[in-house]
């Protein structure tokens, strides 16, 4: 009797993971919605942890980072639907957690597949941050940067940078950058300065890596623009456009690489003479 019961129990052991797998398969499409069920507004969550709000904020912060990393690595659609609510709960629990605003803004603004592609929401997160931490020049600086980089609003960006420059401890170059934005309306050089600052200010980690990626994207765009200019030069001098980009090398007018920073060859349209970052390259971004 005992033996048969033991055998029966042993046979039942694999049934647990097997049935769990079947349940997971069934729940697959609903998983995101189920996750949403566990999210309330930040204020509601705050009420659950009287005296332990900061600890709860840390837990939600870790969950935000894990969620984003998990979506980036394993999700098929990568829509990052929960990124904003998670950031909102984290910052409601700890309104002074600057990294949450910065991180949330970067990855809400960044277009897919790296981010959610919702720049307005990213800007809103930063605006919330500047309201909750009014003395932080970095958050105000980021708001200016992101207005320029993702909304292409040079005037609004300059205004935010001016405000950042008045805050205690602010970097000296904020005013000159603001003036440049107003004068030139923004260019690749301004973008480069912004991402370079974000790279310098970020500690080792995902934000720094992201800034580095952005600098590589700018390098690639600049290289493509220089090549376009060279193609036009060659056309002017020789009366015809080069058939292939390699011709620029053979003519000795371009000694650099014909690949972008990700190692993908630049795309060249002979009919227009335009050189651009290939659409299948990780360095490609809509312009």
């Amino acid at each position, binding site marked *: 009797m005992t033996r048969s019961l033991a055998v029966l129990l042993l046979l039942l052991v694999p049934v647990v993971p097997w049935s769990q797998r079947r349940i997971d398969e069934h729940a697959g499409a609903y998983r995101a919605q189920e996750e949403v069920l566990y999210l309330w507004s930040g204020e509601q969550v705050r009420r659950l942890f009287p005296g332990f709000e*900061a*600890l709860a904020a840390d837990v939600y*912060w870790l969950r935000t*980072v894990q969620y984003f990393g998990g979506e980036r690595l394993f999700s098929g659609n990568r829509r990052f639907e929960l990124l904003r609510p998670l950031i909102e709960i984290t910052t409601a629990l700890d309104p002074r*957690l600057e990294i949450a605003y910065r991180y949330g803004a970067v990855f809400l603004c960044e277009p897919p597949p790296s981010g959610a592609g919702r720049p307005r929401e990213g800007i809103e997160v930063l605006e919330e941050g500047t309201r909750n931490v009014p003395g932080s020049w970095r958050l105000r600086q980021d708001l200016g940067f992101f207005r320029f980089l993702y909304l292409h609003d040079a005037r609004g960006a300059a205004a935010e940078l001016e405000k950042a420059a008045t805050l205690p401890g602010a970097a000296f170059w904020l005013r000159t950058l603001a003036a440049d934005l107003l004068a030139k309306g923004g260019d690749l050089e301004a973008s480069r300065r912004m991402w370079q600052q974000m790279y310098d200010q970020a500690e080792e980690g*995902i934000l720094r890596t992201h800034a580095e990626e952005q600098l590589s994207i700018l390098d690639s765009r600049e290289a493509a623009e220089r090549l376009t200019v060279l193609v036009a030069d060659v056309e002017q001098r020789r009366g015809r456009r080069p058939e292939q980009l390699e011709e620029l090398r053979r003519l000795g007018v371009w000694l650099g690489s014909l690949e972008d920073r990700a190692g993908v060859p630049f795309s060249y349209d002979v009919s227009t003479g335009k050189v651009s970052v290939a659409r299948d390259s990780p360095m490609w971004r809509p312009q």
Partner: protein
Amino acid sequence: MGDSLSRLAAVAANTFRETVRERVLYNLVFFAIIMTLAGLLLGPLSIRQDEKVLKDIGLAAMDLFGTLIAIFIGVGLVSKEIERRSLYPLLVKPLSRGEFFLGKFTGLAFTLLVNVAVMTVGLYATLLATGRSADPLLLAAVYPILLGLLLVVALAMLFSTLTSSTLAAVFTVGVVIAGRFSDVVRNMQEVMPGTPRWLSGILYAVIPNFRNFDFKDRVTYGDPVPPEVLAWVTVYAAAYIAVVLGLGLASFRSRDFQ
């Protein structure tokens, strides 16, 4: 007076030994494990917020574990002696009920002091081991936590003289939670519009305000805690503890153990 103090100290020392024997300080091992794991894992997981998270975890653990010990040991200090009838032979000896009651409080207070002190050392050790500085400002949050824990012990002991240990634990937990929501109590009209203002005023004054003892966020972000604020918190805690212990003692004295 001297004899009375030495009897009180004897009860306190005995209570301390008893609580240690009840493996109360095992939570320190758990704390050590949490801090070690947090120190090792949090850096990459939290995007370099490990110092803040370590401080949050350390201070929250002191508060949470201390509160649990204060409640669940506190309610048993007197009621267990009554239920086990071990109180009777004690009271036959030249030991007043006051000495017994206050001795029990002092003993558990000392256990909590040791507990918080060891946790503080653990938190500093973890910060130093992970290359952070030993921020002395943390002590400005640790001290009020200890005061809050002493108030919890006093409440637990008061309730344990009035009812069974189970109900005493329920009541103490209730009061501690209500005290942590004191901001909601003060603004009760906003949550429950029909509530009379006088009622919320009385409740706010009567329910111990455990928010007063919470400086964790402030010190984590490096905000200074003015000494006069700490002094007022000390006065508040001392007064409240004295009143609650006085009520508990009165209740304990009035009980008939025949």
